[in-house]
């Protein structure tokens, strides 16, 4: 309702300007010439003139004031009579004849009485009027500016913001909030737009979540399917060996030999198909993992000091010890992935060894490699299994491993990540289990 108030204020101001101007013009009147008064004055002067004229002494003063009117007398006998009269005409003064009736009763003009009216009044009025018009114009101009400003802030700017908003939405940035101003006309309009964005965002998030859980389900299922397939393969193998060992001679009936050969063939087919299923599942699993972006690595140049923080973050049991100082340098890594790798190694150590963990750093300047060794003092892994620990789904055969839940993916992913960062991972037994991470130096 601001606009209405402004319109009212605008009108009132204009009216005020108008009233002031009109009343001023009405109020000022140029001093009208009062004929009777002037006549009276003339008569008085004439009378006085007669009186003076009769007597010898002195003359009537040439200027004077009567009834608020200043006058000047110019006699025809004066030298400057003409110039006085012309001056008076120029000044728009009132001029009356000065008559003398003393001689033979016949009135004769002996001069003029000039009434000095104020001629500057008109100029003053003109000036005042100009002032007033200027003021009014300025007031109107200011009002126009105010209105334009209001139009800008309440209409044009919100439109601009809206335009920007629409562009952000189009670019897919659904987190961008539309600033809302309930005070202006677009408040409600804006709100509905923002609601639209909110809904869109929710929908997209829901879709993303659904997608993720679908993929996770696929990944989980494909992992689970591997177990029955393995069983099928094992049984096929078993059956194949068993049937191969059967001597057809010992069996009754002539068809027995052919049945057994056929069975062996069919079992071989089942085995082959099971292999294919296994391979397909692996592909599926790999593809889903990749789609889940679990394997994406974004390498950037980072100060090596970030590694210290990663270990600190994992040191919830206070078991991590740094054997030597980290060489400060710039390394190529994806901090997120590297911290995942370190998390995994440290939590493995917590799970399986539960001893102190020693961290060592070694910077090889010529090879441009920073090696981080993470070493615990547990049992280590079975030497035969050592080369396999980084394989997909591989889990050790030790007792602790069997009693601990896990998927066999941690070190596999660690190897993928390290490769993605241009580094490598190496695992070996030395006192306990040791993992050496090699990171590329810039």
């Amino acid at each position, binding site marked *: 309702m601001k606009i209405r108030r402004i319109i009212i204020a605008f009108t009132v101001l204009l009216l005020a300007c108008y009233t002031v101007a009109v009343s001023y013009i009405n109020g000022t009147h140029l001093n009208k010439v009062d004929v009777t008064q002037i006549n009276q004055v003339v008569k008085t002067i004439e009378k006085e003139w007669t009186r003076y004229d009769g007597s010898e002494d002195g003359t009537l003063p040439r200027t004077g004031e009567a009834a608020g009117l200043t006058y000047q007398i110019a006699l025809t006998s004066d030298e400057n009579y003409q110039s006085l009269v012309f001056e008076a005409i120029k000044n728009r003064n009132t001029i009356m004849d000065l008559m003398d009736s003393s001689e033979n009763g016949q009135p004769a003009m002996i001069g003029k009485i000039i009434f000095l009216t104020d001629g500057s009044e008109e100029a003053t009025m003109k000036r005042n009027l100009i002032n007033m018009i200027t003021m009014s114009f300025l007031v109107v101009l200011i009002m126009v500016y105010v209105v334009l400003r209001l139009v800008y802030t309440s209409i044009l700017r919100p439109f601009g913001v809206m335009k920007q908003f629409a562009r952000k939405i189009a670019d897919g940035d659904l987190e961008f909030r539309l600033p809302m101003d309930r005070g202006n006309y677009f408040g409600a309009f804006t709100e509905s737009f923002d609601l639209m964005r909110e809904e869109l965002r929710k929908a997209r998030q829901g879709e993303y979540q659904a997608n993720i859980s679908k993929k996770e389900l696929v990944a989980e299922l494909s992992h689970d399917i591997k177990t029955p397939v393995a069983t099928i393969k094992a049984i096929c193998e078993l059956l194949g060996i068993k049937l191969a060992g059967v001597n057809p001679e010992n069996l009754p009936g002539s068809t027995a030999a052919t049945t057994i050969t056929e069975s062996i063939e069919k079992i071989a087919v089942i085995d082959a198909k099971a292999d294919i299923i296994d391979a397909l599942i692996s592909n599926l699993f790999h593809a889903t993992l990749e789609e889940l972006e679990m394997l994406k690595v974004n390498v950037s*140049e*980072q*100060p*090596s*000091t970030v590694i210290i923080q990663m270990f600190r973050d994992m040191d919830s049991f206070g078991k991590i010890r740094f054997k030597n100082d980290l*060489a*400060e*340098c*710039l390394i190529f890594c994806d901090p997120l992935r590297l911290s995942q790798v370190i998390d995994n190694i440290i939590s493995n150590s917590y799970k399986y060894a539960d001893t102190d963990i020693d961290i060592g750093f070694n*910077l090889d*300047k010529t090879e441009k490699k920073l090696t981080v060794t993470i070493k615990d003092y547990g049992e280590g892994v079975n030497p035969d299994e050592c080369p396999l620990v980084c394989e997909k789904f591989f889990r050790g055969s030790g007792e602790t491993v069997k009693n601990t839940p896990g998927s066999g993916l941690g070190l596999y992913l660690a190897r993928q990540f390290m490769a993605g960062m241009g580094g490598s991972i190496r695992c070996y037994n030395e006192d306990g289990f040791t993992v050496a991470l090699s990171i590329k*130096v*810039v």
Partner: protein
Amino acid sequence: MNNTILKAEMLSKTYSNGSIMQHVLKNLNIEIKAGDFTVIMGSSGSGKSTLLYALSGMDKPTLGTIDFKGEAISSYSNDKLAIFRRKHCGFVFQQIYLNDTMSVLDNIMISGLLVSRDKKAIATRAKQLLHQVGLNDECYHKYPSQLSGGEAQRVAIVRALINAPEIVFADEPTGALNSTNAINVLDVMSEVNAAGQSIIMVTHDIKTARRANRILYLKDGVIIDELSLGTYVKDDPDRHGVLRAFLESMGW
């Protein structure tokens, strides 16, 4: 004269702006030997000046160490660094930065008095150095505004040398001078170097770089190559040719 005076290892300088990191210097390893005239070249924004300021202790590196005669100056506090710079480093800049309200001699002596109290000895040394760079007695009591650009820069060089620093760091010392003045100033620097003064200089100019006996070429914060001109005598025309070929191969 083959001992290392300045050594930088895995030197990195990173400017961060919020989450955006700008690595200006990346894992640089540099060794400066006493008496070297080292020139750092590279295109704009390659990190030349940043490197000079990091090496001279004017700025602290983000990562890595700087050793000055076996002392790790990269771990010094700001105050300690300031004292270190006063005693061991001389600076010559493109902008000459002489104090306009002091005479030439006072400009030089004020630097000397930061380190030593012996006014007389400093004055003697200042006069001797001024003489050495070709400025005679008349200029002692002149003000910087009465000097030409080349003279002013020579005064700045004397100021840099007054405390007998181990290394003089020069950032484009001839950048603001006309060619005659530039040659004058460079001649002074060559002479000073011939007298055993180590100099590290950043420049864009091939004629300036020609004075050096070692050129480091910096690109995107990494020294991609270096050239030794030590085997060529000063006025060997090959010197220029070799340098030109080197710079061209660097994509100069």
